[in-house]
C-alpha cells in the first residue's frame, strides 16, 4: 500500500489518537484563511511537490484550491513561472519565497522576504511561512509513509 500523499496522510496518522485530529484540522485551516488565496496556497503546494520530486503529489489538485488555471499549474510543475505574465507580481513573490524556503529558510534574502511583505503584509508573510511549514511537513510525511506502508 504505497503512494501515500498529503491528501491521504491523515488516515495513516490516526493511530496517534486525538493529536492526529488536531494536526489534520490545522492543516485544513490553511486553505481557509483571509491572508493568502487558496489558489496561491495550491501553487505553493505544487512548487514544494516539484522540489521534493513527489510525482503522486503533483498529479493531485486540492479540493479547496479554487482550481488554478491549468496553464499556471503546468508552469509551476515545469518551474517556468518566473517572468511568466500569467503570474501576478504577488504570486511570483510568494513562489520565489517558497523555493528559498524549501532549500533553506536561513537563506531567504531580505529582498525576497521584503517582496512578500510588500504584497501581503506582516500577517501574510507569517501565514505564508506557516502554510509552507505544514504543506512541506505533510509532503515529507507522505513520502515516508509511502515506504512505511509498503
Amino acid at each position, binding site marked *: 500500500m504505497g503512494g501515500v500523499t498529503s491528501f491521504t496522510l491523515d488516515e495513516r496518522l490516526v493511530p496517534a489518537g486525538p*493529536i492526529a485530529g488536531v494536526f489534520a484540522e490545522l492543516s485544513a485551516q490553511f486553505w481557509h484563511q483571509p491572508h493568502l488565496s487558496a489558489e496561491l496556497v495550491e501553487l505553493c503546494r505544487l512548487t514544494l511537490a516539484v522540489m521534493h520530486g513527489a510525482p503522486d503529489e503533483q498529479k493531485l489538485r486540492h479540493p479547496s484550491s479554487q482550481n488554478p488555471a491549468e496553464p499556471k499549474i503546468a508552469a509551476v510543475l515545469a518551474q517556468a513561472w518566473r517572468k511568466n505574465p500569467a503570474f501576478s507580481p504577488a504570486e511570483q513573490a510568494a513562489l520565489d519565497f517558497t523555493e528559498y524556503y524549501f532549500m533553506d529558510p536561513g537563506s531567504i534574502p531580505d529582498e525576497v522576504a521584503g517582496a512578500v511583505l510588500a504584497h501581503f503584509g506582516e500577517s501574510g508573510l507569517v501565514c505564508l511561512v*506557516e502554510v509552507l511549514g505544514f504543506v512541506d511537513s505533510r509532503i515529507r*510525511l507522505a513520502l515516508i509513509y509511502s515506504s512505511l506502508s509498503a
Partner: protein
Amino acid sequence: MGIVARVNPPKMQTGNVIRDSAMGLVPETVDLFATLNKTVWRNGLVRPALLEILRLRNARTVNCVFCKSVRYDIAKADGLSEEKVDNIADGFEGSSLSDREKAALAFADCYLFDPKGMTPALTARLKSIFSEAEIATLAIALATFNAASRCAVSLGGMPDSLPIMEISVPD
C-alpha cells in the same frame, strides 16, 4: 539572514509564548497551533525526553537558535540531561544513547534530509522498536517542531547564540 526581525509581534501580549510570537499575527490558526503543540507534549504515547531529543535534532538541523536554546521542563523531569543533548549530534549512532533514542533520531534524519530515502532496513528497525501509534506520534511531533522552527528562521531576527532556557509547555 539579518538579525532584524522581518515582522513585529502582536501588540496585545497574552503571556503565552506562542500567541505572543509572530504566529499571533495569524489569529485564524494560532489557537490550533497552540493546541497542537500542547497535545504533542501531553499525548502520553511517547515520553517527553524522547520528544525533546527529536525536537533538538530538528533544531540543530534547521539551525533555529531559539529552538536550540530551549529545554522543556517536562523533558528534563523525564530524565533528559545535557550529556544526552550532547549526543544528539552527527555520529549519534555510535553514542551511548539507547536503541529507542537512536531509532527516533534516524527517523528524524530521514524526515529532515531525505524523506524519499526510507529504506526497508530503517522501516524494519522502526517497526521493531515502536508501535504504530508511537511512530504516528513521532511523525506529527516532528512535523510540528519542523514547521515551527522553519517559521522562526524564515521570519529573521535570529541571534547568533542564546543561553539555555528551561521553559514549560505553554497552555
